[in-house]
């Protein structure tokens, strides 16, 4: 019954450095993540995990290969349409939280809605609800610098879910957190996945975190080395 939330078909990404040296960060990756899936991407440093996440999140375009988000071929979209796609369907959680230090937790969470044209009152209302859902109803007006690392990452998760995305990408979300905060954040992501059916893809170095995922994709040298829940990308009619 599941539909693909995101599909990568033989995607490569190479960087040309000054002097003509070409770095092949991804060398042909095919991958399909369905709505409601929960997948962990693991692999050694420099293997191309972040590069893949940026492509799946439409922050970057593949050098070759095709990318489909909710059935739409991304290469057919211009930058403005891509921005809209990100805004409406994708949520991001970063290792370094990426909160703006000068504004309150509420304002940080409300930010994606600004670029959707939501009214200010509704933005604040929805940001508040999102913050309450991550257990930060008592920290609405705090600035990021007045929050602990775990709290900051929960604010970031609230920001990712406030726009009700179908796909949530988290690049090492627990990388900067102590064990307990990490566990809290993982619980939140899992809850988001089970309660709201959001597809979650997370990159992690933590084996315990990876073990909790329902699917593990291992990357090495820009290629998928193993995938314990692979769908057939070529034949989309086949149910997983």
């Amino acid at each position, binding site marked *: 019954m599941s539909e693909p939330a995101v599909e990568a078909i033989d995607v490569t990404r190479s960087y040309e450095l000054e002097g003509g040296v070409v770095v092949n960060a991804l060398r042909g990756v095919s991958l399909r993540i369905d709505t409601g899936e929960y997948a962990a991407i693991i692999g050694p440093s420099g293997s191309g995990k972040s590069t893949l996440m940026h492509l799946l999140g439409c*922050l*970057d375009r593949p050098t070759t290969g095709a990318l489909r988000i909710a059935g739409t071929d991304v290469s057919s979209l211009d930058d403005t349409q891509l*921005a809209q796609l990100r805004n409406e369907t994708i949520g991001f959680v970063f290792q370094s939280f*990426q909160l703006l230090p000068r504004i309150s937790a509420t304002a940080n969470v409300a930010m*994606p809605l600004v670029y959707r*044209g939501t*009214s200010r009152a509704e933005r604040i209302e929805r940001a508040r609800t999102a913050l309450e859902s991550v257990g930060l109803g008592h920290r609405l007006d705090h600035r990021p610098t007045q929050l602990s690392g775990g709290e900051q990452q929960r604010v970031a998760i609230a920001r990712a879910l406030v*726009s009700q995305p179908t796909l949530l990408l988290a690049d090492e979300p627990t990388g900067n957190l102590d064990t307990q905060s990490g566990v809290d954040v993982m619980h939140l992501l899992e809850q988001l996945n089970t309660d709201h059916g959001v597809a979650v893809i997370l990159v992690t170095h933590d084996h315990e975190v990876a073990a909790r995922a329902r699917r593990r994709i291992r990357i090495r040298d820009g290629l998928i080395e193993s995938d314990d829940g692979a769908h057939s990308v070529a034949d989309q009619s086949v149910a997983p």
Partner: protein
Amino acid sequence: MRFAEAFRVALDALRANRLRSILTMLGVIIGVAAVVILVAIGSGAKAEVEKQVEGLGSNLILVVPGSLEIGGAPSASRLELTDVELLGRAVGDASAVATTVQSGELVRVGDKEVFTTINGTNETVVNVFDRPIARGRYISAADVDTRRRVAVLGSSSARKLFGDVDPIGRQVTIAGVRFRIIGTFVDVGSTFGVDRNAEIHVPVTSAQRLFGVERIDALAVKAPTIDSIPAIQKRILDALAEKYPGDKFSAVTQTQILGTIGQILGLLTLVLAAIAAISLLVGGVGVSNIMLVSVRERTREIGLRKALGARQRDILVQFLIEAVLLTSIGGLIGIALGVGASLAASALSPLPAEISWWSPLLAFGVSAAVGIFFGVAPARRAGRLDPVVALRTE
């Protein structure tokens, strides 16, 4: 909605770097204030000249050696006293021709001294110019013919030298030579801070001996009617051309002179405003510079906003608003400063500053335009930032 938010964000960013914002604005503030002040002073001076032209309504023709136009160099006078009669014959009325030879001299009465303009003139001056006598009499034809050492004092010179004492019949020493005072002038206004009440008139013949010269500086002819001016101007120039072949003279009305002065002032105002505008431009470059710094500092913020769905245009508008806010707030402060300084200048100094309605508007428009012009490059750079690169930046 997005615009209002971009405005809020821009204002927030300026507030977060308050000192830097103010310093950046300073260039614009100074530029705008300078434009407003200089235009005010320039157009004030011009207005004063025009007011005097209106007040003259005069049939007066001034005759000076050389050509009287912008850029024309003054030439040494070859006019001499006999030219008074020459022009009297040319015009047909000797009483309509006045002459002057001037020099600054030290004037002393007892232990009081003033340095002032000594004006050597003839008896027709009271007829030709409107210089009413307050007390005593003016210089007579006999005074001129017999080279009498008599003097008529302007009101301020009289006050400085004699205080409340009646100066008529008393002596003054001009450049070491004693003169007897025969009259005083009625108080006249000052022009551009030059006090015309300080003048002292003596017979032209006595002045020539006193200064040790043969020349006269200028002649003035009063035409009977305004309509007769062009014909009289021609007769004057013809007579002089005949006597001094090859020399150039000018016979101009005061209206023409003041018109020329007005033209010069207009040009001067323009040049000053242009110089001030350059400082506005420099201010704009400062804004551009700071905006580039701001974009660099907020690379991660820009990347984040793009990741969350900001379009290139959203980012561009945000930074453009920031630049325009910088310059237009600076512009408003500059206008306030410029208007204040102009009002102070006209109240406290002889500079007749006059604030025209258009110069603050223009200055504000220009400063906002400067913001857009110099903000576009940094804002575009911000808009084009690659979100991945921006997010990876530490």
